[in-house]
């Protein structure tokens, strides 16, 4: 499952999701956005593992925000990541 979006006044974000038994087994976020520190993307992707595919955008956003902690996203936001993830899983 994959969804890609060019954020208005921002960067391109693509979310790929692999699932097993109705839950997320792996998520990968790619694109030309910026995130300081860069390694924080690993925590964001891990935070999505185990999520039911039916999870709502609010829950997804909360997980992403918690994983980002004090990291700074430029050209995209936690809300963007969550929305595109939601679209990817349908």
């Amino acid at each position, binding site marked *: 499952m994959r969804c890609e979006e060019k954020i208005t006044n921002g960067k391109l974000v693509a979310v790929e999701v692999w699932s097993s038994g109705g839950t997320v087994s792996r998520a990968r976020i790619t694109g030309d956005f*910026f995130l300081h520190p860069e390694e924080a993307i690993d925590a964001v992707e891990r935070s999505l593992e185990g999520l039911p595919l039916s999870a709502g955008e609010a829950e997804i956003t909360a997980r992403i925000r918690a994983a980002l902690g004090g990291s700074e996203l430029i050209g995209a936001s936690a809300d963007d990541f969550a929305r595109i993830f939601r679209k990817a899983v349908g």
Partner: protein
Amino acid sequence: MNWRIIGYSENDAFMNMAIDEAVGESVAAGGPPTIRFYGWRPSAVSIGYFQGLENEVDLARCRELGVDVVRRRTGGGAVYHDNAGEITYSVTGRTGLFPTDILASYRLICGWVCDSLSCLGIDAEFRPINDITVGGKKISGNAQTRRNGVLLQHGTILHSVDAGRMFSVLRVSDEKIRDKMIANVRERVTSISLQKPGTSKELALHALMRGFTRGKSSGPGLLTDAERGRAVELVTERYGKEEWNRMR
């Protein structure tokens, strides 16, 4: 603060990225803030930290043309670095030398690029997040990272554009889209040569040197043996490794 200015030299893609990181480590350890100008030999594609390698680059075409491919430590997009048509800079300094706000720091350093282009009679402006444009067309892309109290920003300045070659190495599956992209890039991208025909790379480098050093205490310098040695290690440990370049 006395800036070290390292004049233009050419290295392969892996060494270029390794030198930027090695200089960052040396700045973190108390070394001088550094501005470096460089080129890519052979021509190369660099991809942003978060980009998928296979999604962005036609690896078979790169092999065919002898174009190296490396993942940067900075975010942003895929860039084709033509050996003849492009100049890259890097700025490395303690974060305290720059605005805390990331966009403001892009604006500051991109301002040095604009000042340089102004020396050539080219009226360029910073276009957030990380571009510099002339008459609405992109002439420079820039990318920044901050770690261990050090800011690294590197960016490219187009001296001449070969859109056909640029898009033959970047992955675009549909031939129609490829044609559209090339037309698009011709409309949206410009270069020093297009703006001021006949401007040599040497003259462009001279202008960059002026624009980047204006108002600063600075002096010419070289990489130290320790930095060069560390860069060689980083090529082996990171930039030359499949695990790094295929990480996403």
